[in-house]
């Protein structure tokens, strides 16, 4: 691409390079200086957040260019691969979400990887300084952050693919290496379940990724390039003509990988295991950060590269999303394990996000993007408080709790707000996005929109039942000794709740950011129609 100017400071590269460097620096901290490693990781995550804010400021929502802050360098010419970065509004929003959540995840997981927590305090390898779980834990989190941010910025399919796959490895070690101590049964049993969850996570995503690899190669054979902008210009000039069947097959290859990652029913079964066995901060990292890459990629790659096929697949995908919404919510109602309940609730929410994307309306897709941000924040709030709760009692079972609000009112209060956000209470951020998604779907697919509304009802059920069973009622003996939230924990939960309320009342900053990008994406699917109005489409059907 000759028209891409690499002038100025490579801001986008920096947002990914800083956490990557932070990961290396953190990993290199000597074994005895555990606390230094934590502060170092926090420092790097805050610098990343500052850079993400800079990206938001430099990004001009009114500009004509679809991708801004672009960078383009030759990488593997032989594969037609370039190191091409650029962000649209959706990318900026998700980079912001990622950079925002990581410091909270780090602070929330401050003690999760201490030797006494990982059960290795007496291990001779730890004493000898060879095994450094703390350093590893924070380094891996930063590594995931770097890869996730870069994948939101990649405008080269191959570059995206590499990150999409490579981020599985640090994620895998985070799930398998640092499990939740609160488990039923012996240590050995817990280790076995944890490694089962980690392997399941990896295999599901790896299989998805490998199927995508076949489609990536197929795309190259058809298009001869991996660059999104080049493919777009080839398509505009009519040089790139995909046979309908080819396009559909390639679309399915891409979509499969993203649907595993997102996750969409019936490819979701790895998520409850992974979120249940991982520590709460890592569970947040999975569902609030890494899984967003899946839904983001549906918007950016599925719709943009294969508009025709996306439209073709819409009915099936909407039905799958609908099943996700209802099925996830139903299973959440039946869960006995707090973390698995949040996982199934997330599956339900991802159903909403995917439904919003494939409703193919401006409201639907804006709502879906907003939903990604809001779901990240609300799940982080709920899951992290749940993690604090679980670490106090040492059990993940809902039945082991009761009456906590009398003992720990602040904890109970924050937990309530997290639960209410999960059920999309008006006034809290997720409400706006869920409403937009439902409206956007309803205008084109009224029946599906109506059925999806039941998801909200079920959401109210599982959220409130969770609160009622854990926080109200008679105080259980083990719960009675529970301390309230400490300062560190308040520092994590407080800002997240403030954000939930703020975005619930005033979502405009985010919607302004994502709306132009959504319109661009929709005009890929319906070319020539610059601001597609849902009405004519309905009439056409």
């Amino acid at each position, binding site marked *: 691409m000759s028209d891409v100017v690499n002038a100025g400071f490579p801001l986008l590269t920096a947002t990914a390079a800083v956490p990557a460097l932070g990961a290396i620096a953190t990993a290199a901290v000597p074994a005895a200086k555990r606390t230094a490693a934590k502060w170092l990781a926090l420092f790097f995550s805050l610098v990343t957040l500052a850079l993400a804010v800079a990206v938001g400021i430099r990004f001009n929502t009114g500009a004509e260019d679809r991708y801004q802050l672009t960078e383009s360098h030759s990488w593997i010419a032989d594969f037609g691969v370039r190191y091409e970065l650029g962000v649209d509004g959706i990318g900026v929003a998700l980079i912001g979400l990622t950079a925002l959540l990581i410091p909270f995840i780090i602070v929330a997981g401050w003690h999760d990887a201490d030797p006494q927590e990982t059960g290795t305090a007496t291990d001779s390898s730890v004493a000898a300084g*060879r*095994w450094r779980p703390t350093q590893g834990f924070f380094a891996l989190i930063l590594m995931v952050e770097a890869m996730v941010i870069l994948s939101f910025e990649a405008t080269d399919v191959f570059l995206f693919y*590499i990150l999409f*796959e490579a981020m599985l*490895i640090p994620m*895998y070690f985070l799930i398998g290496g640092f499990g939740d101590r609160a488990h039923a049964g012996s240590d050995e049993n817990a280790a076995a379940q944890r490694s089962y969850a980690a392997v399941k996570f990896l295999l599901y995503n790896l299989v998805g990724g*490998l*199927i995508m690899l076949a489609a990536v190669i197929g795309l190259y054979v058809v298009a001869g390039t991996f660059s999104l902008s080049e493919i777009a210009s080839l398509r505009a000039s009519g040089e790139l003509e995909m046979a309908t069947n080819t396009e559909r097959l390639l679309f399915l290859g891409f979509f499969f990988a993203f649907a595993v990652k997102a996750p969409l029913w019936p490819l979701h079964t790895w998520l409850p295991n992974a979120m249940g066995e991982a520590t709460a901060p890592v569970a947040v990292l999975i569902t609030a950060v890494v899984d967003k890459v899946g839904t983001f990629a549906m918007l950016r790659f599925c719709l943009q590269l294969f508009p025709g096929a996306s439209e073709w697949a819409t009915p099936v995908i909407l039905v799958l999303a609908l099943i996700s919404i209802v099925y996830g919510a139903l299973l959440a109602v039946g869960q006995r394990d707090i973390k698995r309940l949040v996982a199934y609730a997330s599956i339900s929410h991802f159903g909403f996000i995917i439904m919003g994307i494939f409703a193919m309306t401006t409201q639907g897709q804006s709502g879906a993007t907003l939903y990604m941000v809001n779901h990240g924040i609300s799940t982080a709030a709920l899951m992290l408080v749940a993690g604090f709760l679980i670490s106090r009692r040492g059990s993940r079972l809902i039945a082991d709790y009761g009456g906590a609000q009398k003992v720990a009112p602040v904890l109970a209060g924050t937990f309530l707000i997290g639960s209410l956000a999960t059920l999309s209470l008006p006034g809290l951020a997720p409400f706006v996005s869920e409403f937009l998604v439902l409206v956007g779907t309803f205008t084109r697919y009224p029946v599906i929109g109506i059925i999806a509304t039941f998801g909200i009802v079920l959401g109210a059920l599982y959220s409130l039942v969770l609160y009622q069973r854990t926080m109200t009622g008679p105080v259980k003996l083990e719960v009675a000794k529970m301390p309230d939230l400490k300062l560190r924990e308040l520092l994590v939960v407080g800002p997240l709740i403030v954000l939930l309320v703020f975005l619930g009342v005033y979502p405009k900053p985010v919607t302004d950011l994502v709306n132009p990008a959504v319109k661009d994406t929709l005009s890929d699917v319906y070319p020539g129609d610059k601001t597609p109005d849902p009405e004519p489409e309905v009439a056409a059907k």
Partner: protein
Amino acid sequence: MSATAVHSLWTTNGLWATAAEPVAKIDSPQIEYSLIAPTLIVIGAAILGILIEAFVPRKSRYYVQLFLSVVALVAAFAAVVALAADGRGTTSSGIVAMGALAVDGPALFLQGTILLAGLVAIFTFAERRLDPEAHGNRVDSFAAQAASVPGSDSEKAAVRAGFTTTEVFPLALFAIGGMLVFPSANDLLTLFIALEVFSLPLYLLCALARRKRLMSQEAAVKYFLLGAFSSAFLLFGIALLYGYAGTVSYAGIADVVDGTVQNVNPALAGTMGNDALLLIGAALILMGLLFKVGAVPFHMWTPDVYQGAPTPVTGFMAAATKVAAFGALLRLLYVVLPGLRWDWRPVMWGVAIATMLLGAIVAITQTDIKRLLAYSSIAHAGFILAGVIATTPDGISSVLFYLGAYSFVTIGAFAVVTLVRDAGGEATHLSKWAGLGRRSPLVAAVFAVFLLAFAGIPLTSGFAGKFAVFKAAAEGGAGALVVVGVISSAIAAFFYIRVIVLMFFSEPKPEGPTVAVPSPLTMTAIGVGVAVTLVLGVAPQYFLDLANQAGVFVR
């Protein structure tokens, strides 16, 4: 080979046979010594190594042999680089040594790869810090005295005397010499001789393990018997092809296959051009080569031999043999049999699919790390075959790249296997690797890098190689093969991940193995492996260019 063929081979060169001297005078063959210098250096050093065994005192043999081997391999590699810099791989490639050898891009690229892999492997051969000292003498992985019966008094005496089998160095050099000729062989007889030159030392090397000697000898016998079978197939195929074409030269056979042959040998008029001979002969030769590659259904020897052979030898075989054999296979399919493409492609499709799937599926059930890597190497042979089938220039260069990337990962991985030890030598049973990540995170992390490269995770050389061959295959119209490849990659990923799980997420067992601290020799081998894995994974462009430039066979 018949006398007429020899005669024609010698007279086609008309330099000395002038009209003025028609008398039967045996002309000396014209050999371009400088162009085949890499092979000559290695073979020469191997012969010198035998003399060293005979004349140098036992105490200093190890050092002299190691020095000689390293110098020879470095010199040979320098010669390859000089030839490539001279344009012998691209613009001025050609047939040398009276049509016996080709000096072209693929040949030089593969020779360079074999020499570097051989050099790294020699380092692991020479490692003497891993095994506990036997009666105060440092020992390597090889038997004290190969000729003594396992457990016998003579063996004990040899151990007590501190004997070591320094013959492994000349044997390895002979093997490398044969491997250098194998991918550049330009007629079928040279091909066969090269095969024997590199196979026979390998059979011997397999039998030389210091520990578990019976298993090692069993492996060697199996390898020898099956290898002899495959050589016989190959030789029979050569005979049939000679009957078909009247010549053993690659270009000559290709001409007959294409139907553009000028003169028919009257003695062979009855058989020449007989397609049955061509098809059966080509199939038999392919069998011989697929045996060396370890492709299904000729893979049976691989797990047993890989398990039984001394681990440094296993690494060397898995890397260098595969490179040489795929080089020969490529040349045969692309130079001799392109006209037969429509006949061999369906068969090779079947072989590639079976190889990928069987290697990946059977590997899941393995409990021994060396057998697991053996089945993994079978699966990788399948992936490489996908690139071979592409029959495009991209296919050649992708296979070259894959071979280069794969060989260093393999040697590195087997070098790590030599480090994990318990009282009985190497602890190869997978259960013993549990918790290795806790005990020695660095070794486990390095091994994890190799496993991820085998699994083809992005940012490792394995991914770049896999992408290259799959891309070539897809562009060559073998899209279905890519899908099968992707599926078997997913299956294969399962068992690589299983080992990582075992190392990092399992509790270390109290009676678990220890990790020996190696000398700089093995560290170099492992370090080179890691460096190549990461460099080819992150910035493969330079090497892809190299492979692209080298991707044209001379005819």
